[in-house]
């Protein structure tokens, strides 16, 4: 579904992302993890068109999307959410979601119905007519996903939708993401919470200092010495092994 090759980005003297290759299989849930500052969000921003890469290509279902604007990429079927939620604060929850629904229909009744259906499906049913500004953190995260889902994407890019949630809320969101995938939407997500990654992802890419250092199943990744070192510091894998 998604094919990223040799993606690179430099900010001044900082090589934020270097030669990143990613493949996301049709119908899968794939995770991109890594310590803070590893370049995950920059990679996401390049895939979704918010930052122009210095080099590399992004292909969705075979079509080259490199360097296109975010709204064009959204129309082609790939939509991102934001780590720091960006609600349209002056609008109601349903009106927020409807902006996404309007990507696929110009008809007000159809867009409104689609928005309410998506909102209800993602557990925002009782909040639909409230102002988006009145939502809790968990509610705002759901709204981010609902708006993106209302554009009827083929691939959904989720940027830390579980950050700041409590364990119960995380379990709910894990179930929600699984349901979205089962509805036919492929998912690539950035996540810090390993419990969620292990529960959701079939394939995991690990980014550290702008480069991919490992990939594989969540179980394999958790035991990879390079990954342990990236998170815990140089020599950590050896120290852990010697107890």
């Amino acid at each position, binding site marked *: 579904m998604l094919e990223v090759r040799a993606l690179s980005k430099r900010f001044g003297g900082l090589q934020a992302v270097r030669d990143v290759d990613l493949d996301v299989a049709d119908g899968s849930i794939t995770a991109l993890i890594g310590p803070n500052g590893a370049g995950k969000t920059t990679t996401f921003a390049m895939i979704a068109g918010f930052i122009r890469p210095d080099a590399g290509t992004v292909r969705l279902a075979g079509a080259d999307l490199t360097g296109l604007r975010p709204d064009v990429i959204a129309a082609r079927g790939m939509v991102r959410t934001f780590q720091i939620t960006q609600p349209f604060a*002056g609008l109601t929850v349903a009106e927020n979601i409807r902006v996404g629904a309007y990507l696929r229909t110009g008809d007000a009744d159809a867009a409104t119905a689609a928005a309410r259906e998506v909102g209800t499906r993602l557990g925002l049913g009782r909040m639909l007519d409230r102002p988006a500004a009145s939502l809790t953190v968990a509610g705002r995260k759901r709204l981010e996903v609902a708006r*993106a889902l209302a554009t009827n994407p083929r691939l959904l890019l989720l940027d830390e939708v579980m950050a700041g949630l409590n364990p119960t809320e995380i379990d709910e969101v894990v179930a929600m993401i699984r349901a979205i995938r089962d509805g036919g939407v492929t998912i690539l997500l950035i996540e810090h919470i390993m419990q969620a990654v292990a529960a959701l992802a079939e394939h995991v890419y690990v980014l550290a200092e702008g480069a991919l250092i490992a990939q594989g199943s969540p179980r394999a990744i958790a035991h990879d010495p390079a990954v342990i070192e990236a998170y815990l510091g140089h020599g950590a894998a050896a120290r852990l092994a010697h107890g």
Partner: protein
Amino acid sequence: MKPAHWFAVAVLALIPFALPSQSLVNIAMLTAFSAFLGQCWNISGGFGGLTSFGHSVFFGVGAYTVAILQTRWGINPWLGMPAAFLLGAAVGGAIGAASFRAGLRGSYFALVTLAFSEVFRVLANSLDFTRGGLGINIPLKLSPENFQFADRRATYAVVLVLLAVATLCAASFRRSRFGARLIAVRENEDAAQALGVDLVRTKTAALALSGGLTALGGVVYAQTYLYIDPTIAFGVERSVEMLLVAMIGGAGTVWGPILGGIGLHLIADVSRAWIQTPGFAPMLYGVLLLVIIGVLPQGIAGLMERWRRA
């Protein structure tokens, strides 16, 4: 808004037709005219957050279009209406495309619009085509076919129709795709773009629509007063009044500019009766703008909303 509210507004709007004196009708006409221009500004400035300080550029283009068409080529001023709308929309589209492609927002965009209106004023002042600083006199030929009315009630009727059209545009933004996208862009550009909204196209279209409608205001002005010059047409005071009407009433609300038009005329007319110092009105506008921004960012409409919820 319930149907009963719409009905009440319609009845209020029709009262001036029954007024005994032309001067009272004139006050009603001027109030509706301010409300109309405020609503035009509101379409791009209120709903789209495109704070323009130079909307007089569109007003002036409309006024000069109808004046030049009939004095140079003898074209009927009613035909000047669609021509003015198209030219106003074209100027709005051009200013919008240039500014938004360059990524100008907020106060930078405000300054660019101000600069455009000044450029047009200077051009109108120096070109033979616009008769320079002399301005253009439209020959008096009172007749409805000639878009010149002896009775102010006819002018009021024309302004009322324009106000209704602009207000229906604003009201449609609540539900329509274009309106939803425009408001989304105002609230958060990144989020809107992520959801497939073309930022440049949406903002440019809003400014073109607003520009076209504002130009119609210029046509009505020219046909009512039969004289325009560069300062009347492109002066900054017109731009300030337009944004003030929208902001006093409530920028980004459907009824704000109508409340603002009534409010501003009450304030300006009453203060003029008491204080005759020249230059007092612009000073008052400045103070009003500060008060609105500081105390009532949502204007009168926001205040009414707060009372209704309390």
